[in-house]
């Protein structure tokens, strides 16, 4: 099964779970007799989701299909024509983002941001620490100043245990 059908299968499963949750939604007594209930549109959407994902699964895909996307150019391997793909580093960067979310409050903004920038750059191959560390630290402090002092959005710079 190719990737687009795999995605359609995932969306089919999602739509079925969504339908189950929509049908099981507990209506309040006064809602039961309304023409338009809280689960009316979700039920309609789940039917459409199931029908469309089945259609994508069952209709043969075109080889010459093209994507017109207003965001960046498609990231398909075939279009770039380059066979040297890095599959490991994107996964590591995603893990680092999750870790950043977990330590943001415990370590404080400046500490967690500096660490994230330093470790991410190291993962991407940067080894000039005399440049990397000042850039990461300086960038974190500058962004903290911009957000908290200029825009007035609170961002605790220090670890939680420092108060």
């Amino acid at each position, binding site marked *: 099964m190719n*990737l*687009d059908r795999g*995605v*359609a299968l995932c*969306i089919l499963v*999602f739509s079925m779970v969504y339908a189950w949750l929509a049908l099981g939604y507990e209506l*309040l007594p006064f809602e039961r007799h309304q*023409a*338009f209930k*809280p689960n*009316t*549109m*979700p039920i309609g*959407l*789940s039917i459409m*989701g199931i029908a*469309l*994902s089945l*259609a*994508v699964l069952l*209709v*043969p*895909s*075109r080889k010459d*299909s*093209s*994507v*017109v*996307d*207003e*965001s*960046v*150019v*498609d*990231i*398909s391997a075939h279009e*770039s024509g*380059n066979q*040297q793909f*890095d599959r490991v580093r*994107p996964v590591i*960067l*995603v893990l680092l*983002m*999750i870790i950043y*979310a977990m330590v*943001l409050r415990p370590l404080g903004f400046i500490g967690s941001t500096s660490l*994230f*920038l330093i470790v*991410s*750059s190291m993962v*991407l191959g*940067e080894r000039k620490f005399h440049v*990397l560390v000042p*850039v990461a630290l300086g*960038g974190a402090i500058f962004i903290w100043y911009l*957000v908290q002092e200029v*825009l007035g*959005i609170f*961002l605790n710079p220090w670890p939680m245990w420092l108060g």
Partner: protein
Amino acid sequence: MFDGLGIGLSAAFSFYNLLMVVIGVLIGTFIGMLPGLGPMSIIAIMIPVAIKLGDPTAALILLAGVYYGAIFGGSTSSILINAPGVAGTVASSFDGYPMARRGEAGKALTVAAIASFCGGTIGAILLILFAPLLASVALLFQSPDYFALMVCGLTAIAAFAGKGQVLKALLMTVFGLMLATVGESALHNAPRFTLGVMDLQSGFYFVTLVMGLFAIPEALALVYDPSRGKAKSGANQKIENLRITRQEARRISPVIGRQSIIGFLIGVMPGAGATIASFLGYAMERNIAPKKDRDEFGKGSIKGLAAPETANNAACTGSFVPLLTLGIPGSGTTAILLGALIALNVDPGPRLMVERPEVFWSVIVSMYIGNLVLLVLNLPLIPYIAKLLQIPRNYLIPFILFFTMIGAYIGQNNPTELFIMVGLGVMATALRFAHYPLPPLIIGFILGGMMEDNLGRAVRKANGMDFLWDRPLTAGLLMVAALFLLVPIYNDWRSRSIKG
């Protein structure tokens, strides 16, 4: 109209709003030059800043400036390094990059700037003329008509998704609508589909969704495919001689005139946009050019560069027409702008012109100012801004990821948003690899709440679904929506039958 223009001029020419135009255009150009970030990602990153400004006029002026600044910045990387990070500037690289390779990078950038300025300016004039007309017609709309209009807009966007992509685009639209039902709705106060997670009581925060869907996959794509967006040549060349001759100006003038109008009209159509306008503009000018000019296309023709540049800027302006007059986004980018307006408690739609004329008119006037800033300020700064293209990726990518995360975090001050954003980013990356278009998803998400509200009101008032055929306007719009869907599906089926 003249009263409105007066309001717009006085608001747009205030020092604060002028500053927002300049900052927006500079930031948009600055970040738009970096391959890997499209205007949607850039605007998504700027939205938390715009929302914190508090003033909807200033916020929309800032974001609009970022939008066309990003288009211009994307043209710059398209011309200098043949790395069009913005789909709407791909056509600019066909002739812009060959011009840069033969040492005419300065001239190419000047042609791009002038063409963009003219396209955007003529687009702004057409917007001033058409928008009030459309807004006054739209005041006749009621809930059933709004619902039908949104269905029409969503199906048009799916229909324009590309050959063989209609089903996937529709699926993404429905998926976006499903995500919009999470949390509380305006009609029913009880939360739905939160699975007990308190942070989802108000639904998904749209900045989180947008960052996760657009900015993260782009950054990860730069790591996955190291050749993507790499400088091939031109980034290191000295950019000088930012002049064009009178003869060259005479050659491109008719091109600019035609593509300004055509690009604007294409931009008005939901689902079409800068990308389609730029490709159509390029193809049209090549087909109507005299033979000796036609042979130059693809090898460094200034007409070949002027056409898509004019069309894409005019289309960007045109895409604001449905947003400002009907509250319907015509593209992924204007969908994000619509989300920003809602977050600022501005009710987009035909009443915007009546209830918030200062927002409506100042955005339109600021487009003209923004185009002027692009021409006057950016062009001399291009040789210096171009040095950004030399930022090593080892620093660029972590900072892009960091900006997306901080953008999602500061909106709600809640680390849960980061987890949601990373999850959405991974999902969006998989969707991109599988060739699923993402703009229908975000448009479905943003319109989902309004669609449900209008549908609910229409059903309750009619006590059933009779409203679908009772009102001629509703029925007409739904028939147009059906045509939008059926024509590409039929064409697809026919071409498969012929091939098979």
